[in-house]
């Protein structure tokens, strides 16, 4: 009986040894790729899925209609939509709310449009001021001074059964070309 000791090198393309080799290389590469996909797709899908499925926007009550004086700008706090159970304190958000009429309100996001730092309302000057790079906004949110490229973002507000409600929204992002 002849033990076939095939040489691992050499041979023309028509040589069955070369096509065997090519086949084994192909099988290894294909199996490796399949393993990569089988592991990678669920993991990467898991990581990216929350970015595709956005949480719903919710209306959050921030106080009764009578508790807000006309013309006054106050900080209101509310909870994010669908927070994770262990979010604790990080599920809270704040906004600047001003009653402008009987049932009219305007709510400003507290994120400066420059790089997102929280702005403060300076009552005496009626200005929003950012601690990070000196951005200043007038009371209507338009830019008064400093680097912010856009006015303060606004949240939707409504009055519902005597309660003032703010619609939860994503953090405003300043994007390329703004």
């Amino acid at each position, binding site marked *: 009986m002849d033990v076939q000791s095939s040489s691992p090198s050499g041979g023309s393309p028509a040589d069955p040894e070369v096509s065997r080799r090519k086949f084994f290389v192909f099988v290894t590469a294909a199996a490796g790729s399949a393993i990569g996909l089988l592991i990678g797709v669920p993991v990467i899908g898991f990581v990216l899925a929350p970015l595709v499925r956005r949480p719903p926007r919710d209306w959050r009550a921030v106080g009764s209609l009578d508790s807000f004086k006309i013309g006054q700008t106050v900080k209101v706090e509310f909870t994010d939509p669908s927070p994770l159970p262990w979010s604790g304190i*990080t599920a809270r958000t704040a906004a600047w709310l001003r009653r402008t009429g009987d049932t009219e309100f305007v709510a400003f996001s507290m994120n400066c449009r420059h*790089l997102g730092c929280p702005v403060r309302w*300076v009552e005496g000057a009626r200005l929003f*001021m950012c601690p990070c*790079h000196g951005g200043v906004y007038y009371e209507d949110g338009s830019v008064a001074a400093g680097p912010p490229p856009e006015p303060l973002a606004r949240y939707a507000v409504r009055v519902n059964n005597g309660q003032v409600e703010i619609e939860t929204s994503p*953090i405003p992002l*300043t994007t390329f070309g703004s």
Partner: protein
Amino acid sequence: MLKFLAASWRYIDDRTGASETLGPMMKHIVPRDARWWYVFGSAALCCFILQVITGIGLALSYVPSGGEAFQSLKYITEQAPLGSVLRGMHFFGASAMVLIIGMHMVQVYLHGAYKYPREMNWMSGVVLLLFTLAMGFTGQLLRWDANGVWSAVVGAEQAARVPVIGPFIAHAILAGDTIGGATLTRFFVLHVFIFPAFIFAGVALHMWLILRHGISEMPKPGQPVVPSTYKRDYESRLKESGLPFWPYAVWRDAVFSLIVVVGIVVCAVVFGPPVLVTPPDPTTLNVNPAPDWYFLFYFAILSMLPPNLETWVILGGPLVVLLILLFFPLFFNKGERAPSRRPWAIAIVFFVVTSIMILTIYGAKSPWSPDFGAVPLAQLVPSGPMAHSAGAQVFYAKGCIYCHKVDGDGGQRGPDLSHVGDRLTDDELTIRINNGGHNMPAFAGRISHDDLSALVAFLRSQQSTPASAARNGGTLALTGSSSN
């Protein structure tokens, strides 16, 4: 007993091949003149190991939950035995690592050790630098106090400027639309699993390349790198006068690393870890977000840019710097290595190091930020007639103090007004206050006529000579220490 241990070791050594594999590596020949200039790389590795071990210790108690992290850190700092020292070692270890990596880079660059055949040593080192800085950024965030929360937001806002996919990256950073429970966990995984994995791989490559190409000799003027003959010449010089790394060179690495670690421990015990002040409450708006010291220079650059250049610098700046750092050995891999023959190298190092130092100092002072801690009204003591204290009250109430200094108190964002009475007339002051100016808001419509008159009178009284000040009714002395 000893005989038994010796025999056991011989058995293990035979079956694992430990000494016959590691032995030659440890005893590889290095140039005789490779002495104290060469200790920085191993010190960086020592710092990294210190970070990993202290990090594992911290991770045994730290809870990476958005709601609980702050409490677990307070527990580690205030209650857990040696917890404060551990946190301190981790913080000063990070600072030490950044500092030593900087020194290592400068030393390698000035000695031309990045030239043939060690170009890839340099490139792998640049990648390691990148991941080290990433670890610093994510690590500060994991402190998850008010500063940490806003660092995540500012990071996401910068990423959002990338064209097309910016908002997607921003949401990936935040793990959602806003800061939430998942944000911290994401950074924890980056800091503990993903980035360290890359660093381990990078260090392995970096050290393999050291073994492959050998340690470079001290550069000598008149001995340029010629790729076609370098390896042969290097080997023959090593054969002639080289020494085994173990123990003739490694002892210096050990001594210097010891000095560094002692420094880290001493700082940890004496200064303690960064203070945890405010919980990560996104509704706390009275915050002053700032990065740790090794990023202050970048913080300063971003803060002083004209706004219309910002997106280009945020996106392009790091990219251009990274490309230059990564690929310059490809273009400059031969020729003289000695710094005395490379004046441009010396000039570049001097320029970069000085710039970074100056920008860091500037970043620490943050003159572009309004000073919300400026002296409150209660500490005001008018030394002249009361006529001008009304104006001083307006100066505080309208927020002028946040951006302008008077007599040493106030912010630095706008010009110092301590002697503005010398420069501007009543009319000029009125026009400026009403209309605003570059980076100053217009106050027309938000200041009453009486307040404006009082304010202008107060500002006019801020003059350099007491005589003229007295003429205008007195100056204002502020008591209490400045809270700048």
